């Protein structure tokens, strides 16, 4: 790389905080024209936040950004357009009932008369230059995910983007579509554009990028030439040294088979396959960790077990109750599962959108699981109230009163209420999704402790997590999901952080 060139983008000491947390801390790096830079990092390492500052979604709290050597204040997506920066988000910003051309023309000012035909011609031109396949007159609602992504890229190019940022572009693509995308990106590089691609897939990083910049926990680690990097070296940079955490891992002698998940396939509401042939067993008396890049099917997997996600035919979910009876949970609604006498607890990722009623107090939230008990028309409130008080006292929930709407509590206290309720029903299976996300150290340790208690009671605990150090210290076994498939189940005591990081980012041949 010719370092005498003026960089297309320079970050100098860029910092962004959300509340007390640093999303990005003192980031300094250069990005050049005519290169494809991969921005690599774990979940929550600050990749997207950094790029959002470049595309005008966020404004940095500190530091400076230079575009082509000139200091820039990018305060809105519009500013970013004017500087020739285009970002393709994971959630596409398209109007469904509009054609491709109409979407491209949206919001463009000062280009003379409205002339879709001329615009369509220019779109075709752009497509020809870079090798896109796009029908300008096609409506967005008729498009596949890949076509929508193409449209987003064309939209950015039409507006004269010289610097193109793609946020995990291949997450939604088939391998063939991803290949096509990469060839287009190479064409853009040949045209002298700057391409920044946010990803955690190492194989892709190696095959497409010229250089790799690595972020970890909001901080900038290093930029390396791809040619000198290997999957292993990148994984080490990405996950960092193993941090010893003082989380206990009590051993439990009698593990009993509790849950068998076999060949589960599932699609999301958009028709994309989110789970492919997922099989595993969960035992009472152990914590099964689930690791994976976010959006690799963790949510759908837990929801499938809880009866909230439809699974395809041929899937099987079996539950062995402590008395030795085996029952299928397949196709059962949460209510039916409950009626079968199975105590299944689920701490969902979306605490206030799904797990707790934000506008209700603790008592009202305790009722969410138990309100329909009994035959009376009146909902029982005495027991929930006592339970709420018990949880408040035992878990030290800080709240003005058990009737204060829970959404006014702090994140840690909200989670204590949710986990407390789920544990209170003496579950046989306890599933948690990102149970410590956003929690401070103390609250996190409270949660780990609660999970360990459950494990010692013989509960089958499933712990979906994102911090590999925590997964390694807390869990007994770790299942690694990659792209909706099980890419390995490893013993947490034996494995290394690198190995898990590798499994998260590299789908094994035999699993693909």
């Amino acid at each position: 790389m010719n370092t005498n060139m003026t960089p297309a983008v320079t970050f100098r000491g860029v910092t962004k905080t959300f509340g007390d947390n640093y999303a990005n801390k003192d980031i300094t790096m250069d990005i050049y024209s005519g290169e494809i830079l991969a921005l690599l990092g774990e979940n929550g390492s600050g990749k997207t936040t950094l790029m959002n500052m470049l595309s005008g979604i966020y404004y940095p709290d500190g530091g400076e950004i230079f575009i082509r050597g000139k200091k820039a204040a990018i305060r809105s997506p519009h500013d970013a357009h004017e500087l020739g920066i285009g970002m393709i988000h994971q959630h596409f910003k398209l109007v469904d009932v509009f054609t491709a051309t109409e979407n491209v023309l949206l919001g463009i000012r000062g280009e003379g008369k409205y002339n879709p035909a001329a615009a369509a011609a220019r779109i075709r031109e752009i497509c020809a230059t870079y090798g896109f396949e796009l029908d300008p007159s096609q409506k967005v609602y008729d498009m596949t995910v890949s076509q929508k992504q193409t449209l987003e890229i064309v939209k950015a190019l039409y507006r004269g983007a010289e610097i193109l940022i793609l946020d995990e572009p291949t997450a939604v693509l088939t391998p063939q579509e991803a290949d096509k995308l990469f060839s287009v990106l190479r064409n853009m590089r040949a045209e002298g554009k700057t391409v920044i691609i946010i990803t955690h897939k190492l194989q892709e990083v190696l095959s497409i990028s010229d250089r790799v910049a690595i972020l970890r926990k909001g901080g900038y680690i290093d930029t390396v030439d791809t040619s000198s990097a290997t999957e292993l070296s990148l994984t080490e940079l990405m996950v960092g040294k193993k941090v010893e955490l003082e989380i206990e891992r009590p051993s439990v002698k009698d593990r009993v088979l509790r849950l068998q998940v076999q060949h589960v396939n599932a699609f999301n509401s958009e028709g994309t396959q989110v789970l492919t042939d997922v099989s595993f067993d969960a035992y009472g008396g152990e914590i099964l960790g689930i690791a994976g890049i976010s959006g690799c099917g963790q949510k759908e997997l837990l929801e499938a077990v809880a009866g909230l996600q439809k699974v395809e035919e041929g899937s099987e979910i079996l539950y062995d109750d402590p008395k030795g009876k085996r029952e299928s949970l397949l196709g059962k609604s949460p209510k039916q599962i409950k009626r079968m006498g199975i105590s299944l607890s689920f701490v969902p990722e979306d605490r206030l959108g799904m797990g707790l009623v934000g506008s209700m107090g603790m008592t009202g939230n305790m009722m969410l699981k138990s309100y329909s008990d009994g035959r009376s028309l009146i909902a029982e409130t005495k027991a929930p109230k006592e339970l709420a008080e018990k949880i408040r006292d035992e878990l030290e929930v800080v709240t003005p009163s058990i009737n204060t709407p829970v959404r006014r509590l702090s994140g840690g206290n909200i989670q204590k209420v949710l986990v407390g309720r789920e544990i209170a029903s003496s579950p046989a299976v306890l599933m948690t999704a990102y149970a410590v996300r956003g929690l401070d150290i103390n609250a996190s340790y409270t949660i780990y402790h609660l999970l360990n208690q459950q494990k010692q009671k013989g509960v089958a605990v499933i712990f979906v997590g994102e911090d590999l150090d925590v997964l390694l210290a807390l869990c007994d076994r770790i299942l690694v999901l990659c792209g909706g498939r099980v890419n390995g189940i490893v013993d947490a005591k034996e494995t290394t952080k690198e190995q898990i990081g590798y499994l998260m980012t590299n789908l094994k041949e035999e699993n693909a």
Partner: protein
Amino acid sequence: MSNQMTKKREPLFHIVRRDNMPMLAAWGYRIGAFVLALLLNAVFVWCMVRVDPITFYSTMWEGAFGSESYIWATLKAAAKLLCIAVALSPAFKMRFWNIGAEGQVLIGGMAAAFVMYHYTALPTVVLFLVMIIASIIAGGIWGFLPAFFKAKMNANETLFTLMMNYIAMNVVDYFYDKWRGFRSALGILNQNTKIGWFASIWKDNDTDGLMTNEDFWFIVVILVIMTLMFFYLKLTKQGYEISVVGESHNMARYAGISVNKVILRTMILSGAICGFCGFLVVSSQSHTISSGLASGYGFTAIIVAWLSKFNTFTMAGVSLLIVALEKGSALMANTYGMRGFSSSAADVMVGAMLLLIIGSEFFINYKLMFRKKDKEVQAA
């Protein structure tokens, strides 16, 4: 340079949602808006007809509560408004925009009138039972249809219920015209026999006292409905389900609640109470049917229910307030009509007051944060 850009681009303030305003403070805002509205109206009245504020307010009070007959008129109208608002409350709590109360009341009233018009031979108890059941079923159907299409295919309930109003009005008009025949108006049904009237329940000879007052029983029944609804929403399992569905459909699924079932059940209930309200009005108040039966309160009740935030006792207060304004303004119009203060001026006053009061909701739900104070405000 960077600072200059900051100045150019930053708006003066931005708006932040808040959800922690104490109830008292929130009511402080609402009452403040109400007082402001009263003051503005006083100015308006002074400019228009040169009536000083003291005379204005005392006339308003007089019109609403000045004599026994005024009080009765106010209470009756407030009860009717309250009944419809109460009927709407479960739907609104579920975040289902039932704009169709006017039609649901009309069709319920129509069903009741149909029974009392055609089945005069039935024994009183049976007749009343049939009237009640008919009105509840009719209102229930009017509530069920939009809910069914909302649940099955997500049809816009606001537009659907709105259209249902006019269908009900035309149904009523149809029977009105049919029964009217060649007369100029339908007049009172069963005027001589009083069949189907509340008054037919008690004997003619004990005419005095509250116990034989149709209006009194009208109000009592509605207060009972209000109380029942309060506890239904607050204490029952179904009420709990309504709250959860209103909060988020996803959460309802998580809790094992069948969202479609709750939508259907709740809307049938909402429509049924509206229908029952129609029966009450026909049987104890109008003793006849016309498309003006609900006197537009089906729409006003939407505002009452929204302002009261699903609390039926609050609805009683808000209904009384709105009706008192109407009645007070009506007396203003009677008294100063010669000077040009018409009954429509009263409508303008009530409308302006409502606008101000609903406008105060903004300051309850949001706060303006001025840029300079950003950091301190956030820290606080």
